[in-house]
């Protein structure tokens, strides 16, 4: 992904145009359409700031989601000039022609304008892949935890950085074609637990969760997930890792 910032090229206060998808599925009167907003750019302006600008000064009816404004919560994902990205981590200065088109993420329940519901799907995914440590061991919290290899811990923590933003699903054409496909976030979640020595599940157990064409075997390696994940998770290598494991299950 091109994250080059054209900082020095900013013309103070140049006018930028945000073309935003507007639609309220719950309002019978509402028709899906694109609406242009022209605003003055300020130094270091992110799409979050630009949208707040529009909301407070131009259009109180515009809907979009934000919480952390720092690329941590995953709620501000949207399609920016065709690419699914986090709005709070995207600088308007990156777009040299000053034209930015914003769409809600596809494949999720649309709420209104740029606002979508990723939470319901992510919760269902967590349940589906049983996204928790499975262990029969009684934990004695008065004792030190069993140590694990630092490299293994790093690998697990690396995958724990997922913020469930939904960008991997919205950049996956397989998922757009086939709504039941689990997508990178779910597949890599199983990798997280398969790598973690605390989890006692076997490959057979994981096969029951992802061993079908909606799961690991549905992935066609288009790599949209890998190329758009804002947290740069190693999605391609970890999906391949799970595929190798699952294909060996007897």
């Amino acid at each position, binding site marked *: 992904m091109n994250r080059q910032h054209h900082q020095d090229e900013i013309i103070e206060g140049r006018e930028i145009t945000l073309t935003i998808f507007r639609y309220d599925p719950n309002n019978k009167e509402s028709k899906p359409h694109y609406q242009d907003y022209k605003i003055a750019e300020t130094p270091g302006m992110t799409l979050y700031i630009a949208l707040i600008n529009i909301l407070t000064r131009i259009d109180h009816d515009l809907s979009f989601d934000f919480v952390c404004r720092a690329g941590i919560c995953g709620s501000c994902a949207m399609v920016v000039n065709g690419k699914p990205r986090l709005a709070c981590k995207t600088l308007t200065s990156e777009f040299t022609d000053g034209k930015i088109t914003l769409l809600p993420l596809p494949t999720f329940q649309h709420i209104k304008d740029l606002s979508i519901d990723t939470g319901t799907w992510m919760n269902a995914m967590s349940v589906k892949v049983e996204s928790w440590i499975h262990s029969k061991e009684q934990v004695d919290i008065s004792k030190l935890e069993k140590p694990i290899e630092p490299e293994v811990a790093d690998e697990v923590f690396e995958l724990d950085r997922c913020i469930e933003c939904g960008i991997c699903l919205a950049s996956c054409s397989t998922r757009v074609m086939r709504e039941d496909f689990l997508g990178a976030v779910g597949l890599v979640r199983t990798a997280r637990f398969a790598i973690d020595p605390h989890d006692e599940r076997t490959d057979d157990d994981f096969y029951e969760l992802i061993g079908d064409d909606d799961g690991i075997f549905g992935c*066609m390696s288009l790599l949209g997930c890998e190329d758009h994940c804002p947290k740069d998770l190693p999605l391609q*290598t970890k999906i391949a890792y799970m595929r190798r494991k699952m294909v060996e299950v007897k």
Partner: protein
Amino acid sequence: MQQEQIIELLTQKDAKKKKSRIPARLDYLQSATGLLLAIFMIFHMLFVSTILISKDFMLAVTKAFELSFIFEGGSSVPVFISIAIVFVIFIAHALLAMRKFPISYREYKRLKIHANLMNHADTKLWMIQAGTGFALFFLGSIHLYTMLTNPGNIGPYASSDRVYSDLMWPLYILLLIAVEFHGAIGLYRLSMKWGWFDKGDGKETRAKLKKAKIVLSGVMLVLGFATLFAYMQIGQEHKASYGERYYNETYPMEQK
């Protein structure tokens, strides 16, 4: 058997509440057949392109495949068997890979709009692979059937006559383009899909593999077109004596 299948139909799992292992086997076989075909295509190219060196060399290679060191003058049986095996792998691969096509207008439309919206390189590569794969259903089948029914008619003049006088060259141009794109993208996809070279920095490896893919399809296309052109030229020169076979001292009388 019958009851077990119905249980799976109703519950998506078998009577032991286990998921079927078949999808895993199919995914593996899809890749394995693709890999075999891709390797075969590379060697196939090396063999047919011997015509660029000389007619005698191409004849010697042909005779080696006819096992002329065992059968006096060569036999078409081993050639027939080899082609039949390739044909079976080809059909198996088509059957397995077909499962991935956008299979309804709805799927096709969603794929196309989404891919265009994102303008993402590897998604487009997949669409090229699916498109060329579809073309190969026809192009590959025609070629394989022709060869299956003419296993003894391979040689410097026999092949050139087929390319030029029997008008196979338009088909071969399309087949060459389709196969080289499909095969090279397929090998790149295989390495991503199974993580063949995942040691170290994944992103760097991927960039290198992508370059290798472009080089591979480039080299194969150049070699392929040079070879095709060579057969066309020989075929044109040989037009008047269509049907006559090439022979030399080592292999006198390449008979019909």
